[in-house]
């Protein structure tokens, strides 16, 4: 496939053209946050920093309707009611601009749950089928990034339809690489990337700036087993979670977290059944009607979050012997960056590796 060029000066017009065919979500800067917004005429997409939220909203919206229902009184016998249930409408074709490679890899991890675990989730599947990702490759890693620990990298192509590489040549812009036929179609109106732009990119890829990579990835292949070893060590989990606030920041911003709640919202004789994001860091998540709660403390809950990502997921989706396990974490670092108390999942995993070995 030919490499195309998306000039900075052409970004807004190109986005506007895409917005004619798709529900376009693009990142904009609002104060310290970078958030995806539905395309509007005078919008300025901001691709300079990774968005604060992950891209999962496009595939697993925070709120969606599972069904709607209506009650009707039987006109012949008013003590009787009937109920009618309707499924939601199919989703619009969507294009998400400005995700990062770690977000795009998140799609694969969501696929594991919603498409591959057993029962296919039709709502997710429909969105997955008609959502395209135009992803921005990262020029450097941030202090919170560790995608290279979990099988990704700043220029990983996995999960994207188009990958944009920033270059300074030709007045500045992106060398755009289509990775799927749909991605190629998105780019067909753009000019071919100049030789200068392509050479600049090749040089950048060949020697990434030295401060960009924060050190080699540790070998985490024993993480699942170390986790199980430390599972019952509550002192370990209490110390790791002592400052945790039990909020939803880490799980709601995570591109791989997929837990949800189902609740009904009634209004008069009709209403809807909603699916909404939920978080395993909340005590209510597992609270049973009897008052019994298998995860009473933050220690239990943090243990579940880390365990799911670094033990249960790799056990459920095993790789070949000797290969690095697949974790349910893309190393995007959002849970670290936005945690109000700087809980660092890397630290927890490294502590597991260390203390799980000793014990």
């Amino acid at each position, binding site marked *: 496939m030919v490499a195309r060029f998306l000039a900075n000066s052409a970004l807004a017009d190109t986005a506007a053209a895409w917005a004619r065919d798709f529900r376009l979500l693009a990142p904009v800067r609002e*104060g310290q946050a970078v*958030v995806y917004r539905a395309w509007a005429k005078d919008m300025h997409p901001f691709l300079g*920093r990774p968005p604060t939220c992950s891209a999962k909203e496009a595939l697993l919206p*925070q709120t969606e309707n599972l069904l709607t229902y209506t009650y009707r009184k039987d006109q012949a016998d008013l003590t009787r009611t009937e109920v009618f249930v309707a499924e939601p409408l199919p989703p619009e074709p969507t294009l998400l601009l400005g995700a990062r490679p770690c977000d795009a890899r998140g799609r694969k991890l969501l696929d594991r749950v919603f498409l591959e675990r057993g029962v296919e989730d039709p709502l997710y599947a429909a969105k997955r089928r008609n959502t395209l990702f135009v992803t921005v490759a990262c020029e450097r890693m941030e*202090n919170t990034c560790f995608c290279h620990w979990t099988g990704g990298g700043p220029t990983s192509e996995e999960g994207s339809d188009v990958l944009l590489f920033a270059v300074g040549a030709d007045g500045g812009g992106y060398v755009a690489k289509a990775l799927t036929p749909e991605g190629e179609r998105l780019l067909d109106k753009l000019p071919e990337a100049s030789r200068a732009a392509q050479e600049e990119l090749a040089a950048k890829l060949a020697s990434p700036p030295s401060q960009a990579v924060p050190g080699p990835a540790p070998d985490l292949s024993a993480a699942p087993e170390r986790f199980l070893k430390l599972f019952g060590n509550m002192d370990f989990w209490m110390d790791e979670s*002592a*400052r945790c606030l039990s909020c939803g*920041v880490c799980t709601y911003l995570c591109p791989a977290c997929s837990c949800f709640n189902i609740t009904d919202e009634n209004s008069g004789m009709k209403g809807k059944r909603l699916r909404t994001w939920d978080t395993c860091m909340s005590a209510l998540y597992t609270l049973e009607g009897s008052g019994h709660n298998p995860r009473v403390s933050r220690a239990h809950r943090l243990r579940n979050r880390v365990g799911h990502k670094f033990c249960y997921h790799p056990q459920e989706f095993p790789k070949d012997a000797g290969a690095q396990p697949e974790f349910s974490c893309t190393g995007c670092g959002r849970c670290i960056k936005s945690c109000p*108390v700087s809980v660092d999942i890397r630290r927890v995993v490294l502590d597991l590796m260390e203390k799980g070995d000793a014990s």
Partner: protein
Amino acid sequence: MAADADDRVLQLRAAVKAELANVDFVLGYAKGFDPLHATPVTVRTEADADRLIFDATCVQNLATSLYGLNGKRIGLVVKGCDSRSLIQLMQEKLLERSQLVIFGLPCDGVLDLAKIRVKADIAAIHGAEISGDEVRLLLPEGTKTLPRRDVLADKCLRCRYPNPLVADHLIGQERTPQGAEDTYADLDGFEKLSPQERFDFWKRQMSRCIRCYACRNACPLCVCKHVCLADSRDPHWLSAEATLQEKWLFQVMHALHLAGRCTECGECQRSCPMGIPILLLKRKMNRELKEVFNYEAGVDPEAVPPLHTFLMEEDKIKDRGQLW
């Protein structure tokens, strides 16, 4: 920054070590994942104590961590503003003074990372130096220097209580307050906008909310936590939908429940990952409380919060007689 900075950390570590035998553990600050982040730590051993730090990155209010620790004896490192949360909790009988060993550190102000992020991309920062009136950021593209006053938290700029109001160990020289009487200039400015403009402002801001409830859980005085009305289905005030209406209603609830209790520690706003200026709502409540009851939360351990009591005749509330 005051000259006693390094010294003070050593004194703090020594004081903590000396108290370790008398407490279950001490909550303090240690270095976080990068030069601009500190993280709360549990100190049980002398080695843990050697990790303690105290500087402008120690933003968290550790009073929040006391939630659920009733029955334990805890050492706590506090700044001036944090000590006000303790006082407020004690006033409300949610905390026993005897439960705590307080290490009070006079404070020069903490950084507001949200402000810095607007001025610089600090995601790959590899060093930070905070001197008298400058903050030097060592960034991949070079050093960037910002005036300290531009990146201190707003609460620090108007702080009148940099010296902890309650402490067992007061560590370091007392500071002179940076702020005078709070004029609520920010609020005045905001209220000059038309109702429509204010409405549009909040609409835009609140639409970013992801309902993570970090704001609630970070608040030292928001003590309902998981039995919060926001999560309750009976009464069913908020739906699970992430709509503007639900998000906004929660903030109104939080502000109202904190009226006369909020010490403006700012943890709610600081914890918000989406940078929503929710402290403004609490400041609005506090200004009203100040005007009506001449009350400021968390300053006087003996005071009774005005909404926890009533007077037969309130100074600022007109008695219109029995109009029934």
